[in-house]
């Protein structure tokens, strides 16, 4: 058995396989639900109802999608240049720390005008956190997968230290959480009465900006060239290492915005459970979107819907909520296979 490249895959092939992958994922979901002793169709109905069955559910889904759009974009940008940033979790917390530090400082005297400053500072923090592993890659050839992964653990311990020490909320009744942000520095709701904050709007804007950078600028072209074939890119005179550094700054900054928006928009303070793995889920979001920045918005809402829907289904039907994680991992693997099959044909011999 070997693989034969397909020069021009037809529409049936390039849409058919991803569609099959999604269908197979639904099948796996049904099997898992049946295994847990629930009616598969009923379970699926409960998931959809929990994710989009009411205005409240839908807004909950969009709120959950917001950090995933940011981390999904961060991963999509990096993976496009074959920069394996698995450390979005660390960058997210970096952004969150800076948001809390500035948001509880004298800066709050400036009111809402300080928000862009805080967002930018958070982005710088995230960018710097990714810059470390990328410099190790370009200078010493150290694989960034392992270093970015290890940074996630280091960062979480740093947050734990900060929350028990210097950043501990004196009014926190002993809970490890930070002091709340000044009210003036909270991201406002998009409309009064709606439980959706401007972090979601910012996420949509970010997706648009990333799309513009990737398709309409020289940097976007260089990032794709480095990702497709870094040797050829170097030969063509593209400064590969510089492009990787720029990609890292963009990717780390985007992931940090997830932390900024969760703190300033949703929670109002920093705690150790700020992110239930948004950095890792961002990888699934980005891959399901085929690394397309506008696709990331769609898949982030889809993935968030599965999590929110599974939470409410789990309470009603007694199927463990981890079914959502299993499904998404299955979807990821099947989608990677589907994309592979649109580019290659399996032949005997």
């Amino acid at each position: 058995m070997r693989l034969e490249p397909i020069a021009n895959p037809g529409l049936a092939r390039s849409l058919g396989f991803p569609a099959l992958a999604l269908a197979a994922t639904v099948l796996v979901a049904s099997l898992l639900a049946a295994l847990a002793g629930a009616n598969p169709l009923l379970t699926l109905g409960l998931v959809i109802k929990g994710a989009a069955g009411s205005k409240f559910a839908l807004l909950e889904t969009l709120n959950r999608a917001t950090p995933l759009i940011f981390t999904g974009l961060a991963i999509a940008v990096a993976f496009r240049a074959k920069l394996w940033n698995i450390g979005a979790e660390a960058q997210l917390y970096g952004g969150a720390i800076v948001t809390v530090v500035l948001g509880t400082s004298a800066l709050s005297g400036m009111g809402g005008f300080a928000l862009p400053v805080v967002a930018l500072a958070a982005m710088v923090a995230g960018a710097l956190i990714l810059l470390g592993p990328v410099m190790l890659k370009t200078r010493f050839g150290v694989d960034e997968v392992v270093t970015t992964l290890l940074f996630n653990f280091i960062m979480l311990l740093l947050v734990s230290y900060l929350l028990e020490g210097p950043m501990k909320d004196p009014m926190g009744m002993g809970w490890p959480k930070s002091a709340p942000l000044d009210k003036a520095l909270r991201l406002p709701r998009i409309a009064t009465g709606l439980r959706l904050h401007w972090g979601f709007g910012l996420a949509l804007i970010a997706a648009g900006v990333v799309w513009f950078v990737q398709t309409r600028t020289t940097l976007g072209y260089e990032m794709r060239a480095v990702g497709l074939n870094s040797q050829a890119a170097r030969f063509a005179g593209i400064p590969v290492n510089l492009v990787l550094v720029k990609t890292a700054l963009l990717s780390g900054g985007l992931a940090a915005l997830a932390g900024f928006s969760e703190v300033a928009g949703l929670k109002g303070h920093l705690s150790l459970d700020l992110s239930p793995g948004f950095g890792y889920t961002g990888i699934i979001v980005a891959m399901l979107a085929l690394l397309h920045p506008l696709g990331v918005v769609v898949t982030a809402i889809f993935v968030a819907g599965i999590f929110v829907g599974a939470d409410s289904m789990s309470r009603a039907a007694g199927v463990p909520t981890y079914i959502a994680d299993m499904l998404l991992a299955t979807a990821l693997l099947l989608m990677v296979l589907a994309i592979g099959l649109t580019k290659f044909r399996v032949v005997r011999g």
Partner: protein
Amino acid sequence: MSVLFDILLTASFWAAAVRIASPLIFATMGELICERAGVLNLGIEGIMVIGAFSGWMAVYLGMGLWGGVAVAMLAGMLFGLLHATLTVPFGLSQHVVGLGVTLLATSTSYFAYRLILPEVTSPPKIEPFQALEIPYLADIPLLGPALFAQTPLTYAAFAVVGLTALTLYRTPLGLAIRAAGESPQAVAAQGLSVTGLRMGAVIVGSGLMAVGGSFLTLSAFSSFFFEMVNGRGWICIALVVFGAWKPGKAMLGALLFAGFDALQIRLQQTPIGQIVPYQVFLMAPYILSILALILMSRRAQVPAALMVPFNKGER
């Protein structure tokens, strides 16, 4: 300084170092075999989780301890088969597939745990492996308890290192595996199947990773906790690099690493631990791994075809 000597002169420190190293040795050998054949297996973290979970669950449901180890190994091999199928014949991205396998294996463990034990707040305990003292040798001061009074799985870990080194360097199969990771074209020219060699290496390697995971539940602790693997898999990937893809060196790396880990736990109990926050001690293993990667990066002998998919008839 005397604090340091006080710790280094206790037998319990050395015994702890060897104990902490055991799961890392299994998983590091597993990863090393995969990478020597040319496949980076980022499924390691999740495969260790499924090994820890399935081995423990098998024993909890009534199997013997060695039965639990076998179940863990089989579960690991199953996820290895999944990883190998996607990355070897289909040549898909080893990064993405590996992370996908980690997510799938981890969530499968958690899902199955909740399915079998829906209402438990604290996980039930099992009777873990007991230390097997080797007569006379275990009485050697300082190093006796470390080397000759461990659980059977620790002895097995060292046996696996020997077996891995022997297979890789002294058998035709080992030569073929190493060649598949260095120059797959040459292997194919010999009429051997690169696909078969690589898939076999990933499946066997994944089995070893899962046994490493099962050490945590069957030897070290007696229960399964969420997040109990806690990045050990990623550390093993760093250890493979640190050991320059050689079994003996990688084992020494794991022991050195475990030594530092055992040291930081003990330092927390000393006056130093009163001044330095405990999080700094917990960070040490991860920082050490990164430092090890930087140190070794210049001299590393990376298998030439690592992460390069092989497609017959293509150059």
